[in-house]
């Protein structure tokens, strides 16, 4: 293979696609490959005796999936849902889970090299462990999240402990 060709492939491979969404004033991004679908707010059934950031469950075409409010999870003040509110349905360990966000903006392509480690100050409300990095992209600051980290086996254990 010619060097130039392999170079261009390498550059391509370094790019990832992110879904960008907003919670409050902060803009976040998550890997598009982990997103199953993005739906409008639907009827949420509250589940009793669960941590406050679990909004409840919804019926996603016959499947019952839990819905988590990222606002609550990140200890941000509560906000009314409006017609821009979306649920990002993600595939986590073969289980679907929905995350409520204020709005979804777009899918952007960025080079992996653009991702910088998160400065410690940013992590006000957001759990440190699900912060994957910070991206300066076209004058914007995007906080890259790894939501799977939020529910790593350890986390999940405390999650169920919390319930009990």
């Amino acid at each position, binding site marked *: 293979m010619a060097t130039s060709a392999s170079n261009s492939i390498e550059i391509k491979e370094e790019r990832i696609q992110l879904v960008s969404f907003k919670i409050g004033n902060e803009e976040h991004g998550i890997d598009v490959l982990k997103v199953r679908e993005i739906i409008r707010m639907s*009827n949420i*059934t*509250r*589940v*009793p*005796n*669960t941590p406050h950031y*679990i909004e*409840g*469950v*919804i*019926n996603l075409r*016959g*499947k*019952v*999936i*839990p819905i988590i409010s990222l606002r609550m999870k990140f200890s941000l003040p509560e906000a009314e849902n409006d017609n821009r509110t979306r649920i990002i349905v993600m595939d986590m*360990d073969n*289980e*679907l*889970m929905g995350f409520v966000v204020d709005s979804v903006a777009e899918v952007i392509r960025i080079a992996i090299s653009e991702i910088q480690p998160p400065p410690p100050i940013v992590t006000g409300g957001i759990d440190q462990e699900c912060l994957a990095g910070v991206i300066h992209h076209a004058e914007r600051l995007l906080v890259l999240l790894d939501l799977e980290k939020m*529910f790593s086996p350890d986390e*999940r254990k405390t*999650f*169920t402990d919390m*319930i*009990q």
Partner: protein
Amino acid sequence: MSLNTEDQELLEGFLTETTELLEKVGDDLLALEKTPDDVELLNRIFRSVHTVKGAASFLEFELLVKVTHKAEDVLNKLRKGEISVNIQIMDVILEAVDLVRLLVDDIKKENIVERPIEGTITRLEAVLIAQDKEPVANEAPPETPSVPSAKESESPPPAVLPQSVVAAQNNDPRETPSAAPQTSVNIETTDKSTIRIDVKRVDDLMNQVGELVLERNRMSHLNSDCLGRINIDVFADEFGKLVKRISFITSELQMQVLKMRLVPVGNVFRKFPRIVRNLARDLGKQADLKIYGEDTELDRSVVDEIGDPLIHLVRNALDHAIESADERLAVGKPRVGCVTLSASHEGNNIIISIKDDGRGLDPEKIASKALEKGIVTTEQLDAMGPKDIFDLIFLPGFSTKEKVSDLSGRGVGMDVVRTNVRKLNGIIEVKSEMGQGSEIILKLPLTLAIIQSLMVEIEDETYSIPLSAVIETLRVKEEDFSSVGGREVLRLRQSALPLMRLQQRFGISQQENNREFLYIVVVGIAEKRLGLVVTRLLGQQEVAIKTLGNYLANVPGIAGSTILGDGKVALIVDPAKLIDVGEEELFRQAS
């Protein structure tokens, strides 16, 4: 041996067909043992084995071809009446069928290993030689053409056969026969990923889908009518009818699909005649297995789970309960022991019972054994009734048999039974009479997917309570509540029914303060009762259970969820857990 077939579909077809055929052959062989003169049966077995051989040779599974071919030879001789059915021959044939199953399993797992097949082949040949003096080497080739009547038209041409036959015979004598798999092991033939459905059910389903298509056409017709400015009243009327019909068809359709998950319990029972036969022989006992209610249907997921417990229970019955023939005669019982396996419906439950006419459980022996093993203390034992003592056999590490046999007695069996049954939300009951035999009854839910439930409203939220736990419902005034030891109770027919306000328990915000009436759903688990206070009763409904997933699996008091007619999710409460929680709180208050 390599799997050099490019056509995956062909292979899958082969595997499905072969698995089915082998299952049938297994049944037929056992039947044959009982009615050795049934020519039709023998022919059927022969045909099945032949089909397997044909397909195997077509796909070039050499080991399979070798074994099936020899088995076919023996069967052919039986069929022609040159030799007659006896126990040795049956053993060898059954062994061969087991081996074939093992080989097919290997293929299924895409893990083809060179298995020692020569032992079985030698034994098959021994049958051929022993029963008539003809040398084997000469007899095999002319045999293959001599099966025309039995040959089914779709079986692939056996053109490849002669070579492999020669190969088989050349190899045999020199190989070590000792390494042969003495497989009385029961190989799991149940394929978890596929399901076999009665054609009639599929036809019914097709009919209903047809109806649905019809209604859709009506709907689009109505739509064009509407565009053509039909009278609004007529439209509303027509539309109302349409909605009714569609909802009817949809619910029918839903039931139909749910029913497809139900499979006859016979699928599990089928392997037991074989197990009992082999076990009885190995143990030197005589036992008959009677099977009742094999048509009883239950959910596939339940069927998958009860196989292992049943094997343990049947083994136990044969190993521990049934006495040897002499012993039986000495106590005036018929020589041949009897194990009965039966299944029946009882409401929304299925009852599976394993009954034997053996020596029965000896409470004293169980007690002393449990003491010896340190499972219980003397004080605990003293407090136990005979039923409690029987239940000790389900504890891990318990086994009364002095000699640990290959079959049972390792002290894990009954524990496995209990674990699996509990997993299915089932109940185990032990009945036993010294010297008369014992019966173990498993009461299992018919399905894990659909339950009858009572829909209730708690303030503005809808919940579903499994009807199986509901004893009664009451409409009461709040002032009728009284308090005992800090806990709300209701005086109900001379007893105090503890109450639990689900509104508080589930943290639901109160909508209205002074309701005239409240409703109480009395739920019961075993001997315990609890009154759940709800706002309104909505009625009875059959609901399909959906899990809440791993993340929300442990919400206390919630067993799962279901989807309502309007697409919203309703949670299913877990009465057993609520009763536990209630007790705990009471306990905490008391201490």
